[in-house]
């Protein structure tokens, strides 16, 4: 290009303003925006810009806003139960044409350093996440979503030790489960430490659609163990695991009371019990799973290991043909049956130390998420008769509480004696199992609930409406919180310098801001946050933040 022409081009550029702006300003906020809660921060997932906007509350309802990078093509997010970590799973570039193209990754944001993210590059782009409640592992697997790939190995599990830094080939590491019967993983359960002869070991229980597999979480060199749910030589039924329960064993009697894994299936009226018997070699920490079948009189809808005044039992809830609760003594398959008046389908366990049950047993809350059962029952396992009896006297041990409508959900909080029930006719109940009290809270519309990590209070709100209330679960006492913007979600987090803050989010969705709550201005609403003191939520002292997704976009 001649000098004269270059000069002309330069002049033209100057005149028309050559040089576009950063693409981030033309990138819309992908709706809905997902808020995730750490114990001391909230993260808003900005999918289109591959980042999380991290909000931390300070004194006087102040908010500090940072951003941390995430991977491209986010497919799944999760939060650890204790609020210590946030997990964001990304698939990277759909078609990687060069080494510089971004690959799949798992990004972890920790409460200890919420403005810093830790990235683990993954060997494969999978779509599902399982989070270890103990906080050590995250497992990435295919699940039911192929993630845009026309072929996948569903038995690939990518183990990420989130307590360690990334290390090529070692963390994360890929483990492919041998599929003896052609199954693929559906549910992953991390056990508590199970008590074996030489040490405690944690297992990953993988429920496939055809069997159950045990994977050692502490020793990656141990081979997987397959637990079949049917004998293919004698039983042609296509049984699939529908749920498991794990008994950790007795640490004081590891040889006599070894760990047990119970498996219920979709169609069988037996519960399959695998006792993980220790190896006869005293130097070995291996075990041999020994199967046993316990007949429970119908297809169980839920199972759990419970503590009764007669010792440990497996409880099974059988809705039909006769609604019963069954207690199975694992050692000798002796069963006791409690005839129930209605077909409850699910159990929520309250351990004996806090339940207020008589005789030192657990209490079990029985409820039904479907079937229109407008009651719950509290089964006192401290009143279980010995084996000389055939049945459990339900008049003495089962207490029924009639509700105003069918139960939709039962939510447990950090306080194990408290459960929060929602019903289909817009009533909430705070159930205090310690005091055998069910306190109703009536609502005029469907409400959403969020709970504090401490479990002492809940926040009720009507999505898309300026309706917010604090529920002190101990009472329960309800205090309406005045808010002038429509609420899409709320999170309670720890405040820097002490105390708790409630963050109420606005504008997370595409159309969640009713016209009546918008000002007269045009354009897309931003994402807003109203910060309250969670202990004394008052509109007077609250502070309103808006357009938070525009923060931290400068290079």
């Amino acid at each position, binding site marked *: 290009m001649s000098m004269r022409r270059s000069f002309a081009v330069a*002049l033209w*550029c*100057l*005149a*028309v*303003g*050559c*040089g*576009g*702006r*950063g693409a*981030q*300003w*033309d*990138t*819309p*906020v992908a709706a809905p925006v997902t808020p995730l809660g750490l114990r001391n921060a909230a993260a808003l997932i900005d999918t289109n810009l591959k980042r999380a906007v991290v909000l931390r509350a300070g004194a006087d*309802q*102040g*908010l500090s*806003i940072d951003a941390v990078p995430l991977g491209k093509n986010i497919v799944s997010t999760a939060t650890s139960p204790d609020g210590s970590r946030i997990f964001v799973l990304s698939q990277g570039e759909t078609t990687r044409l060069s080494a510089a193209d971004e690959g799949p990754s798992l990004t972890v944001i920790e409460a200890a350093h919420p403005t810093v993210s830790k990235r683990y590059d993954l060997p494969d782009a999978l779509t599902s996440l399982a989070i270890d409640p103990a906080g050590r592992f995250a497992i990435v697997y295919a699940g039911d979503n192929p993630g845009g790939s026309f072929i996948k190995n569903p038995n690939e599990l990518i183990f990420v030790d989130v307590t360690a830094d990334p290390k090529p080939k070692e963390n994360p590491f890929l483990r492919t489960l041998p599929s003896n019967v052609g199954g693929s993983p559906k549910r992953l359960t991390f056990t508590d430490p199970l008590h074996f002869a030489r040490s405690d070991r944690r297992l990953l229980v993988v429920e496939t659609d055809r069997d159950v597999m045990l994977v050692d979480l502490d020793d990656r060199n141990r081979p997987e163990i397959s637990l079949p749910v049917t004998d293919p030589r004698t039983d042609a039924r296509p049984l699939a695991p529908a749920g498991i329960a794990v008994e950790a064993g007795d640490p004081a009697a590891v040889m006599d009371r070894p760990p047990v894994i119970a498996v219920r299936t979709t169609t069988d009226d037996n519960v399959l019990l695998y006792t993980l018997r220790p190896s006869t070699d005293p130097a070995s920490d291996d075990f041999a799973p020994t199967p046993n079948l316990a007949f429970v009189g119908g297809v169980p809808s839920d199972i759990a290991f419970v503590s009764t005044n007669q010792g440990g039992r497996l409880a099974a809830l059988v809705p039909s043909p006769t609604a019963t609760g069954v207690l199975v003594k694992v050692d000798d398959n002796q069963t006791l049956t409690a005839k129930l008046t209605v077909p409850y389908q699910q159990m929520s366990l309250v351990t004996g130390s806090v339940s207020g049950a008589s005789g030192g047993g657990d209490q079990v809350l029985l409820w039904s998420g479907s079937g229109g059962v407008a009651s719950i029952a509290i089964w006192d396992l401290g009143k279980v008769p010995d084996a000389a009896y055939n049945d459990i006297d339900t008049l003495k041990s089962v207490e029924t509480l009639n509700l105003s409508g069918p139960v939709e959900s039962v939510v447990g909080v950090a306080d194990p004696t408290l459960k929060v029930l929602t019903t289909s006719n817009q009533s909430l109940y705070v159930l205090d199992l310690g005091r055998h009290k069910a306190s109703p809270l009536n609502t005029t519309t469907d409400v959403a609930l969020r709970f504090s990590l401490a479990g002492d209070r809940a926040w009720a709100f009507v999505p898309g409406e300026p309706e917010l209330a604090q529920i002190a679960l101990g009472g329960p006492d309800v205090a309406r919180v005045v808010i*002038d*913007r429509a609420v899409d979600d709320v999170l309670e987090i720890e405040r820097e310098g002490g105390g708790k803050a409630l963050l109420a989010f*606005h*504008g997370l969705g595409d159309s969640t*801001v009713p016209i009546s*709550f*918008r*000002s007269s*201005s*045009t*354009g*897309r*609403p*931003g*994402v*807003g946050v109203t*910060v309250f003191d969670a202990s004394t939520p008052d509109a*007077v*002292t*609250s*502070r*309103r*933040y*808006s*357009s938070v*997704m*525009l*923060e931290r*976009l*400068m*290079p």
Partner: protein
Amino acid sequence: MKTSSIGWLLGSSALLGVGLYATAAGAESRFGSREHFWQGELGVRTTFVTDPGFDPFANDDALTQLSLGVARTVWDEDRVSFAPGVIWDYGWRNSTARGQSTSFTSHRIALALEGRYHLFPFVYGLVRLTPGAVRQSMEVDDPLSPAPFVAQNWAFAFDASAGAAFLLGPQLEDSVSPVRWWLAAEGGYSYAGSTSLLMHPDLADGDPRRTGDLNLGTLAVSGGFLRVYGSVTY
């Protein structure tokens, strides 16, 4: 003293200076009234703002402004003259940031110190140093916010430029009309101090709602610029 006061003081001083010197100047000019004159300017100025802080308010880097100026030749000798003056530039941009409406408005008031070299009676080259002040207002609209976010601030500004002016007419020294028309263009670099883009909701006084700010970083409207203007001299 407020920065705004400094700007107006700068402009007033320049005008006063032009007036005081005007009567004593012009005796030695080579081209007479085509070199020694009062000048009024009207034109368009485009600044190529590369600062990323400008991005939320414009889809490209151009800040185009209306430019008005007045100058007076206060000294000349042979082909060289010196003409101080005052220039006011005003412009705005509207855009969106992630779908939210934004706007930017800029006023620049500056003292122009212009040296000229008259090649011919009908053309002269110029170099110009222009210290001044820029006042900029930014707004980000959010229907969810109690009020639009606004930020307003002043910054020191300084231009250095060079260009040329061409006499359109009348060309003759002894023209009947004392008024002449010129077309000029200049280009150079414009420096402006960095200002904060910490934006506050523009609530009415006494509004009890407590709000948080929106921090978009900083902005300096610096960059190369081009200015084309027509002028009338007398």
